[in-house]
Every structure is written in structure tokens, then in C-alpha cells.
């Protein structure tokens, strides 16, 4: 499957910011270099191959393999530009396509360049291909005269020019389509011509078609293939940063440079996939300080993507569609057995259909933190290769006026709720954002990001995620893989960034925050028995401190001085937090023999509760409202901030 075909509106819009999403070949060499990320080693390999071909008989043909949007055109355009620059001439035409040549002497030998049009609609036969190659050469002669030549004459002309002016380096895209057009016979002749040393290919293809993948195919094993992997999170961040810099968006550049920025990018990667073009599309939609424009841009992007995915879905067989539908409906990675169970198709057919869908790049095996920990290595989970395909189904199932889930997911992981200028938001945008932050993914992302005011989430839900996280970490990933893809991805991102204790402590903090008002209960007990052995006491203390949110308190705190710690809350405005912190310490004391005797904590807890109750009555009398049990006061800072402060104190 591929990323959408050119959409004039979207592309035009993007070009205004200086980045062409769909046709990188139209960008200047400088712009291409400026926006280039991650693929430099491949470019260097191509340069070496051209240099070797110019000096001797070696012909190491390059085949870049990747779906549409993987950055093939960008790479080929840059390879061409650098080769042309090496020759001392950049002869690229203004339309950026088609006829563009350069040929100059480079040392003892020389080479020539011929860049064929990206879309090979004019190549319907081997003869057309030869004409196109010849037409791309500066020394290619008169096109009308060339058209009169036979296949063999054209081959001879190419061989002749190569023998006098050096091998012809052909930059060619959509090789699979061209090979199909020239048929097996043409492929055999092309191989022979190339074997003679006249040609060096720098080609790309979206897939290894039969002509390339069949052992009997003339061009099988002819190329050195390089698969263009999706961008890593760091590479994606680099790309987003470069594009933001290009449009002068310093706020986004700054935000991306923080650890939270990287975390956001990581989660977006799970939501959208890692193909460069998707990042390019999103880079123009995602702005850190423009909630309104970002929401609108994302909506426009999804709107543009919908017809494309609809069309692609329409090309699938009924069984293939059923499997895609199952993956979207279940919203999580599935095994063959899961899919068979959900769709009612027998397992053998599911396996076969999954192979087809893999070939067509609709699905892919999940390779993630949890799958790498799977104890049963034979178990393979599949998920959508293009997560944005969900947009089609969500558009259909969403009621009028409701924002689609994908939009909420993006917004919830991209923005910092606390940093938004809520007062100046338009009602529609405000509604979208409120829904986003109130969603499970939005809430959990905030919790994992160290914000502890996300306790609107049911503690039972957070606890279930915590249990699945621990199981997954210990190699029993099946339960972790039951989580929805978004939730699982957020947890995996947190695990990779902060490890298990850091991730769990954030979840624990949230749960405890939610149930701090409760008296002893079975749930509390379960929470205690689950978390206490897994978290370090020191770390829990830091969690407590972040709830406190007061640096002065932190400064007064000494290890094991529960008295001073809790006393401070009795005289502070943060009594509710005091209760919670004291409860927390009390709770910890039950599990750790090194803490103060539990009696003192218990006593302080009671005193704090009484004081808070009195506060609450007064508040109710004055305002008619009680403090919400779980959000008594808005804390400031984040867990990591306060953890650092705490560490500094002790």
C-alpha cells in the first residue's frame, strides 16, 4: 500500500511553506539538501558506485525499495544533483522532470547522466525505454530521428555513446512498472545491454514485483537492493525540526528539542507510521503553539487521505478487507489465531491472506518493545502498516459533529494541556481538545509524560494497563498485546525512555491520586501489593513530593522525617495533597521496614483529613462547591522535575 497520490491542494499548500510533499524532484538542490535526513549513507554508496563505474568495468546497480512516501524520489533527486555537481554541471530543467542531462569529463574516464520521468507513463515497451534513456542524454541526438530507429539501432547508439563518453547512469523510478511494460523479452535485452557495461542503474521501486522477485526473471539478483526503512523517532524528530525551521516556527523547534518533544514524536510515529512523506505531511500540520491551525490542518489532512484509502480498500478482495476491518475494529495488533477468531476465516486462509496483505504493504508484523520480549518467539502479531488507513472507517462510524478518533489521538499526544491558551480557543477547537485530553490515550499519555492531573481516568483502567505493562516486561507479552495500539505504543515509548520503575511510578502516582480519598478497600490493598515490591521507596517519595508541588517543603524534607514533612501540610494551603502524601508514606511504611513506624503516618493522616474536611466545608459554604476528591488543587510541575529537586535535596 502506498501513501496518497498527489493531491493538488495539499501539495500546493505545502509548497507555500517550502516543502513539496509529493514531488521532491521539483525542489531546488539546496532545499533538498536542507531537508535531507537519515539517508546519507545510502547516498554515499550510490556515489561510490557511480565513481567506480566511471573508472572501470564494475557496474553495481542500485535498487531502492520502499513504499510511496519512503523518500525514494528525494534520494534519487539528490543522487542526480550530486552526480551532476561532480561533473561540474547541473543541467536540471525547470520542471524538474524528464529531460535532464549532464556529461562532463571526470578524471580519466567520464560518465553521463540520464534522469527519466518519475511517472513512466510514456514507456510502454523496451523501445520506449531506450528512447527515454537516449532522450535524457545531452548527446542523445534528435528525438524525432531517434524515433525512426529500431530497437537494435537504439541499443547500438547507447552502446556507442557509452564507449566514447562513459557509462550512462540512469536515474529511474517505478522500475517495477517499467519492467512490466517492457515484458520479459525486453528485460532480457536490457540485462544484456547493461551487462555490456553501457549502463549503470540508480533505480527505485515500490515493491519487488514478479520481474524482480522471481528467480526466473532476467533481472533477478541484478541489483544491489536497499530497503528504505521508515524513519526512526530521532530521524523523524530531525525532519520535523528541519521543516519547522524552514517555516520559521521557533516554538515547535524548541518544543521538539525537549524530552517531552521526543516522546510526542514517538507516539505520533505509532499513530501514523514512520514513512518520511507522512512525517512531511504532519510536519506542516503539527505546530506546537497553534492549536486552532493544527486541528484544522490535521482535519484537512485526514480529509485528503480518506478518498485515497477508500480507493485502495476497494481494490482488496473480500477476505483481505475483512482482515483490515478486523485490525481497525479491534484497534490492536492481532495474531493469526485472533484474526481467525474475529473474522470467522480459517487460520490457513488467514495466513495466506496476510501474506498477500504484507506484499501489498497493508499489514506488517509488529516489531516493538513487547513483541521483542515475547517468550514464544513464534508468535507473530500483525498490525496495519499504514495506521492512517483507520481514517476511512472512522469517518464512516463517527456521528455528525463528533471529531474522529484519529484526530483526538493526535491532538492528545501532541499538545500539552497545561500550556494551551484555553481562553482564546474557539469553541469547536476547545471541544476537540477537551475530548482529546479526556480520552484514555490522552489521559494515559499525560500520566506517562509525568503530569499527575490526569486522574479523570478510572484508576481501574490505569491499573489494568500497569499490570499488562509488568507482564509484558517480564516476557508474558500476550496481555500487553491486548492493549489498544495507541495505549500500547504510549507505554512502550515510556518504557524505552524511562524504564519500568519510571513508567510504573507514574501510573502508580495517578492511581493513588485517584483513590487517596478512599478509606481502606480491597482495591487499595491490591494496588499496594502490586506496586510496592516493584517501586523503590526513594522514588515513591519523589512522587509524593511532586504532588506537594512546593520547593520549600522539599527543602525542609529529610529522609525519614515524616513529622516535619506532614506538619508542613497542616499549615499549608495544600492539605488535600498533604493527606495524600502522608497516606502514601503510610502506605509505604507497611511495605518497607526502613520507614518510620506506621503509627505516626496514620496519626498525621487523620489530622490532615480533619483539617481538609474543615476546609472543604468552608469552601462549600462560600462557593457552593466541594473540592473534587481527586483534584483538590492544581499541582505545578511534573514528576521528573520534582524528582530531580528531591534528589538534589537528599
Amino acid at each position, binding site marked *: 500500500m502506498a501513501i496518497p497520490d498527489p493531491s493538488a491542494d495539499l501539495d500546493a499548500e505545502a509548497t507555500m511553506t517550502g516543502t513539496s510533499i509529493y514531488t521532491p524532484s521539483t525542489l531546488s538542490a539546496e532545499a533538498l539538501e536542507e531537508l535531507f535526513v537519515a539517508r546519507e549513507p545510502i547516498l554515499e554508496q550510490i556515489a561510490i558506485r557511480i565513481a567506480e563505474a566511471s573508472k572501470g568495468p564494475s557496474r553495481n546497480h542500485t535498487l531502492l525499495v520502499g513504499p510511496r512516501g519512503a523518500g525514494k524520489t528525494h534520494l534519487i533527486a539528490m543522487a542526480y544533483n550530486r552526480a551532476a555537481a561532480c561533473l561540474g554541471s547541473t543541467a536540471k530543467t525547470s520542471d524538474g522532470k524528464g529531460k535532464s542531462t549532464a556529461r562532463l569529463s571526470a578524471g580519466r574516464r567520464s560518465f553521463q547522466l540520464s534522469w527519466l520521468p518519475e511517472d513512466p507513463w510514456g514507456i510502454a515497451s523496451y523501445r520506449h525505454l531506450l528512447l527515454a534513456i537516449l532522450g535524457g542524454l545531452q548527446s542523445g541526438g534528435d528525438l524525432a530521428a531517434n524515433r525512426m530507429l529500431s530497437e537494435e539501432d537504439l541499443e547500438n547508439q547507447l552502446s556507442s555513446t557509452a564507449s566514447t563518453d562513459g557509462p550512462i547512469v540512469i536515474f529511474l523510478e517505478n522500475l517495477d512498472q517499467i519492467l512490466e511494460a517492457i515484458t520479459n523479452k525486453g528485460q*532480457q535485452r*536490457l540485462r544484456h545491454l547493461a551487462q555490456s557495461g553501457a549502463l549503470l542503474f540508480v533505480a527505485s521501486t515500490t515493491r*519487488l514485483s514478479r520481474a524482480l522477485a522471481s528467480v526466473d526473471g*532476467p533481472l*533477478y539478483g*541484478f541489483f544491489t537492493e536497499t530497503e528504505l526503512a521508515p524513519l526512526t523517532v530521532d530521524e523523524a524528530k530531525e525532519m520535523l525540526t528541519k521543516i519547522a525551521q524552514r517555516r520559521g516556527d521557533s516554538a515547535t523547534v524548541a518544543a521538539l528539542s525537549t524530552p517531552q518533544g521526543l516522546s510526542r514524536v514517538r507516539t505520533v510515529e505509532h499513530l501514523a507510521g514512520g514513512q518520511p512523506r507522512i512525517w512531511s505531511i504532519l510536519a506542516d500540520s503539527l505546530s506546537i503553539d497553534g492549536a486552532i491551525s493544527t486541528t484544522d490542518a490535521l482535519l484537512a489532512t485526514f480529509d485528503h487521505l480518506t478518498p485515497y484509502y477508500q480507493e485502495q480498500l476497494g481494490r482488496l478482495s473480500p477476505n483481505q478487507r475483512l482482515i483490515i476491518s478486523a485490525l481497525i475494529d479491534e484497534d490492536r495488533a492481532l495474531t493469526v489465531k485472533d484474526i481467525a477468531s474475529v473474522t470467522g476465516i480459517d487460520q490457513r486462509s488467514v495466513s495466506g491472506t496476510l501474506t498477500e496483505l504484507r506484499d501489498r504493504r497493508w499489514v506488517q508484523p509488529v516489531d516493538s518493545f513487547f513483541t521483542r520480549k515475547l517468550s514464544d518467539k513464534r508468535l507473530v502479531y500483525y498490525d496495519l502498516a499504514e495506521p492512517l488507513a483507520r481514517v476511512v472507517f472512522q469517518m464512516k462510524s463517527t456521528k455528525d459533529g463528533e471529531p474522529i478518533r484519529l484526530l483526538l489521538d493526535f491532538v492528545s499526544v501532541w499538545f500539552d494541556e497545561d500550556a494551551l491558551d484555553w481562553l482564546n480557543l474557539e469553541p469547536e477547537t476547545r471541544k476537540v481538545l477537551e475530548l482529546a485530553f479526556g480520552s484514555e490515550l490522552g489521559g494515559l499519555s499525560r500520566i506517562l509524560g509525568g503530569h499527575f492531573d490526569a486522574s479523570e481516568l478510572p484508576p481501574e483502567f490505569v491499573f489494568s494497563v500497569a499490570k499488562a505493562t509488568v507482564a509484558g516486561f517480564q516476557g508474558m507479552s500476550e496481555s500487553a498485546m491486548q492493549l489498544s495500539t495507541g495505549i500500547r505504543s504510549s507505554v512502550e515509548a515510556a518504557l524505552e525512555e524511562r524504564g519500568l520503575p519510571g513508567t510504573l511510578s507514574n501510573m502508580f502516582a495517578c492511581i493513588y491520586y485517584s483513590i487517596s480519598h478512599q478509606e481502606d478497600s480491597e482495591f487499595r490493598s491490591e494496588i499496594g501489593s502490586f506496586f510496592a515490591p516493584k517501586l523503590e521507596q526513594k522514588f515513591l517519595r519523589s512522587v509524593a513530593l511532586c504532588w506537594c508541588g512546593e520547593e520549600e517543603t522539599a527543602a525542609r524534607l529529610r529522609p525519614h522525617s515524616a513529622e516535619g514533612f506532614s506538619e508542613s501540610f497542616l499549615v499549608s494551603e495544600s492539605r488535600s495533597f498533604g493527606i495524600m502524601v502522608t497516606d502514601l508514606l503510610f502506605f509505604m511504611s507497611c511495605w518497607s521496614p526502613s520507614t518510620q513506624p506506621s503509627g505516626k503516618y496514620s496519626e498525621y493522616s487523620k489530622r490532615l483529613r480533619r483539617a481538609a474536611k474543615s476546609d472543604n466545608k468552608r469552601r462549600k459554604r462560600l462557593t457552593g462547591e466541594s473540592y473534587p476528591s481527586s483534584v483538590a488543587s492544581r499541582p505545578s510541575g511534573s514528576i521528573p522535575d520534582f524528582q530531580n529537586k528531591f534528589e538534589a535535596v537528599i
Partner: protein
Amino acid sequence: MNPVQLPFEPQTGGTLDPAFVVGRDELVLEILNLLRKGTNVPITDPRRIGKTSVLGRIVWTVTDPEIAILVDFEGVDTVDEFLRRLITEIRKHAGFSKRVRTVLGGLFDNIELHAGPVSVKQVFSARSAASILEESLIDLSEQLAADGKTLYLLLDEVPIAARNIAEREGAATAHILLQTLRRLRQRPDSAIRWVITGSIGFHHVLRQVGSTEGVVGDLLSVSCGALGDDGANALTDALLRGIGYVPDEISVGALIEFSGSIPFLMHHLAHRLRNVSAIDRESVRATFDRFVDDRDASKSFTHLLSRVETFYGDHSLVVNKMLDQLAVGPMDFESVVAAHPSIDREELRRLIDLLIDDHYLVAEGSTYSWRYPILQRIWMRRRP
């Protein structure tokens, strides 16, 4: 040029510079010695073992008064094209005397030019291409003999051309071409020697064109096989340098072990190890496993393993079982017979012969084993 000291960028396809073909000089010498004694040679190996590279190295090695010309017949589907492609390649060589060119010029147009298509002179257009092929090479041989030169014709992908010709012009035409080539090879005192290679076995094509083994029965088969220790070490060293890695004993040893010293696999593994920071046995094993498990990537090397049904049809179950048993260790013929009590002895012998022809097995006396340990390893991995 000594490639050992050079960084050598992995190359899994395309045309290898013969100067960089490593570890094949002993084989090249063996082939040249056979040719010098008048023995014509087919190189029989599965795809990707290095046949074409060896041919290139032969061309690179020989010097006057020997001439070696490599002709690739990929894409040829008529005898006329076969003839013209052969003569075109001969025309390119500068080492022939004026007399040779004059003789060829009597039959073909454009012999004196370096470009433009070679074609049979109009006056001979009524004659068959096979007869012109025969006449031209006889004439050429006589002139070479007079000049004191020997020509080695290295014909690549002849079986594919024969199959294409059979499809386009009929099996009889392909059969005539093969017979013509045989007659030319068998001429006494010929100044032309022949090396014939192809990525599909002659025995399969012969069946298609209705010929018997007799048309290639005069050839003494030579196999490329894996590289020797020195060659494998040299190539591995150069490839690791080519991916920017400083080779050491561990990385070199691991690459040799998991490639089975097959150059193609060495290149492939090195290509896939580009971004690995520490190349050791574990990382090479993981890379090898991924390569083998990625059926698209490894198909060119492992196609034999997936071809049993195509090659052996109704006998594929027996053959699979036999290969399974031999994957555990070598077996003599009686053990094979004992393991297949329901199959006739002669039938088993025939199947084993075919497995040898198809490069699966090798015989040492009456003991059979897998020809390539690396394929044996892959077979075992794929058939748990």
C-alpha cells in the same frame, strides 16, 4: 591489483570488476589448463555461486596469444540473434589480425565498425543462421590457427537462449543449434575452445527441446563451489572494510562460517551488516537468520530448496524425505534404499542422479551428501 588491502563495497548484483574477483584464481587456472589440453568445459552450479564472475576473471587473466571473449546470450530468442550477438562480441576484440576481420567481413556487414549492428550479408540471407554460424567459426578457427592464436569462447546463459529459441522458433531449431555447437566443439585441431555456462541445468532444457544428453556429452563439467580459506579470508576482510568496519578474527570468522564461503552470501551478509556496530558470531547469525527467513531476499540463493516440486513432480515427497535424511548426515546408497523400502532401487538411483545433476547432492564413491553445507543448513532451518 591486490584486493586484500582494499575496502570492497558489497555488491549483490550487477557486474563485478574482474580485477576484484577474489579466490578464484586456482579454478581459473584449472579451467585454462583443461582448455589448453583441448577439453571444453561447462561450469555447472546453481545460481549465485559465481559462474559469471569466473568467466570475467578468465577474460581478465589470459594474454596474447590466447584470447578470451565472454558472450552473454540473455534475451536471445532466435538463432540469427545468437549468431549476431556472438559475432558482435568477437568484432569488439582488438586482438584479431586483419585476415580474421577480412574472413568475417566476407560473411557479415559492419565487421570493421565498432558500433552499429552486425548483420549477415544480404547475399547469404537465404541460408540458415546455424549454417552461417558453423561456417564463420570454422573460418575463424582456421585463421586463428594460422596466426598462432587460441580463442576461448565463454558462452553464458546458453541454456536460456536454447529454451527461448525453442519457444520462438521451435524445438527442432534449438536442437539444430545445439548440434551445430557440438560439431564445432568436436572439430579436431580447432583453435577455438569453449566454456558454456547457464543458470538453468542443460538436462532440463534438453528435455524441452527434444535433445538428448549427447549434444553436451562432450563437455567435462567443472564446479565453482565455495571459496578456499585464503580467498574467503581475503574477500571477507575487504568486504568488512568496504562497510567501514575494521576486520578482526571474530568478525571474519563469523562471516565465513555463516556464508559457507560462498561469495554471493558474503556480499549479502556484509551488505546487511552495514549498520551493526559490533560484528561477532551472534550478530552475523542473527543477520543470516533474517536473510534466510526473508524469502524474497534469499530466493536467488535458496530457490533450489523451493524447486523440489517443480523439478520432481510426483516424486517430490520421496525427494524431500531423502534430502531431510541427508541433511542429518551423509548416507550410502544401501542406507538410502533401506530408508525407502517401498521405492524401487533403480528409481531411487535415478532420483539420486537427478539430485546430483540439479546440484543438491554430491557423490563420493557410493556415499551421498549435500553439495553445499550452507544450503543444507538453510534446508534444515526451513524444515523443522
